[in-house]
């Protein structure tokens, strides 16, 4: 296992020395400042509204929508980070000659992949944890609204980023860096669009659209995790407020069911086996 840590350390140092983190931190601080400003303005705007005749709670509606938006932003930035840390791990690095000096060492190829995944997952998980926790705190402090299950929702968000990192690492075995980066980002976008389609299907009660969205969710489970995280934030909000939140574009109307987490575990194992098998047979 030592060689896994050596490769993970190498990938982490590469990110630090290349100042990837400096750019990420700067952009995230800008995102955080805008979010804090927006949240404080929105809660200030709705602070004068009471609970209406239909039972609509504007503070809960504003808080859930804002935090749903923050989760989307966090997932997107975390996914971009995970993709950029893995997109050239195999074929891209082999094409530039970075990989061969490492692989001829007594280092198994599956350990190399594990090290790269470990580094990407550690960075992306740390990032998602900090940004998501900050968003929950900002939403709670500025609007006095706290989600129902923030930890469970956050864990799903983290798992979603790990799934994206694993897919990007698998793609790097077959595709050059640019093609892999574009491909995984397009898959990521397609997955989120399928999720939105699912929300529309839920709102309209369309079985066909729901089937399409569900199929996409199982094939690209980061999307299912994101929608499940949204659900956990607001699933117990009662009445009209709950109905409106759940049917909105950042709502949590979709319940993936108890098989989601076992499927994620199986999905990650299958991805790892596919990666180890194909990389093990690849000429460099």
């Amino acid at each position: 296992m030592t060689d896994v840590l050596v490769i993970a350390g190498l990938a982490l140092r590469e990110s630090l020395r290349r100042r990837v983190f400096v750019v990420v931190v700067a952009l995230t601080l800008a995102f955080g400042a805008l979010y804090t400003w927006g949240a404080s303005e929105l809660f200030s705007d709705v602070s004068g509204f009471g609970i209406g005749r239909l039972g609509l709670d504007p503070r809960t509606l504003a808080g859930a929508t804002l935090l749903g938006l923050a989760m989307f932003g966090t997932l997107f930035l975390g996914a971009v980070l995970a993709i950029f840390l893995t997109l050239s791990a195999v074929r891209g690095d082999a094409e530039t000659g970075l990989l061969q000096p490492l692989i001829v060492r007594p280092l198994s190829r599956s350990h190399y992949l594990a090290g790269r995944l470990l580094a990407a997952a550690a960075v992306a998980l740390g990032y998602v944890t900090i940004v998501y926790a900050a968003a929950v705190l900002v939403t709670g402090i500025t609007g006095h609204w706290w989600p129902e299950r923030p930890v469970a929702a956050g864990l799903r968000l983290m798992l979603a980023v790990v799934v994206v990192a694993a897919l990007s690492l698998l793609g790097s075995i077959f595709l050059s860096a640019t093609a892999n980066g574009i491909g995984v980002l397009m898959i990521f976008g397609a997955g989120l669009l399928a999720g939105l389609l699912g929300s529309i299907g839920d709102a309209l009660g369309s079985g066909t659209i729901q089937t399409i969205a569900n199929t996409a969710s199982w094939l690209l489970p980061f999307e299912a995790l994101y929608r499940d995280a949204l659900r956990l934030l607001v699933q117990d909000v009662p009445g009209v407020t709950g109905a409106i939140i759940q049917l909105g574009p950042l709502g949590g109307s979709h319940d993936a069911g108890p098989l989601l987490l076992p499927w994620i575990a199986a999905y990650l194992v299958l991805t790892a086996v596919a990666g180890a098998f194909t990389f093990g047979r690849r000429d460099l």
Partner: protein
Amino acid sequence: MTLALEVSGLAKRYGATHALRGVDLAVAEGELVGLLGPNGAGKSTLVKAACGLVRPSAGSVRVCGAPAGSPAARRTLGYLAELFRFPGWASAEELLRLHQRLAGSTGGVDERGELLRLVGLADASQRRVETMSKGMQQRLGIAQALVGNPRLLLLDEPTSALDPAGRRVVRDLLQELRRRKVAVLLNTHLLSEVERICDRVAIIDHGELLAAGRPDELARPSGVEVDTAGGTHRFDGATRDEVPAIIERLVAAGERIYEVRPVRSTLEDAYLAVVEGHHD
């Protein structure tokens, strides 16, 4: 005695392209073997197969008795690729430390210092790779390949970016390695280097081994030249033993002899004869 490298019937096919067609080659411990051939001959593929970077389509490769690509084989070899790159942000010292950890070397700072000294980079240990010239990076690559005291060194065009002084450093290093009983397979286009330092030469083209032997065996005597008052006479195919008879004949014919030179074909002549003969 276990061979450092044993290649038997090695074939490699990429789709319809045959990169190697049943190559046999052996490198003994401490032997320095030059691998020659035109571009696309299959030299790099052979070296990569020995490293375990490519999987043979047929045949076998063993490194110090272990199947190529196995952890045991990789523990005994060092490799510098023709196309290589090291992380630009790393210093020479950091790069060698990384490879020490991957190779399981316990040499520590002493080994790193010794290797940098061997390749003439003792003063550049803290210098980042991205600030080094291509020639310095190539020498650093050789130092990297030597981490962990390999018994077999596979060098693919290790002097392509070096100036004459750098080539001399590498030449001296290879001779030092021979003294230390490290086997070297040197893939290069520089025939003069091979002729000067290699114990044996293997010439391959179109994936086939065309010739192998000592450089002086391949570069055979090809005749005698005699300078006389009447000009230079060339006796193609004549050997050193025939020189007295040639002189007697010329003197009898009234020629005045100024100089007699045995003519040897160079390794380049031998190489071109083998490769061009194969193309015909």
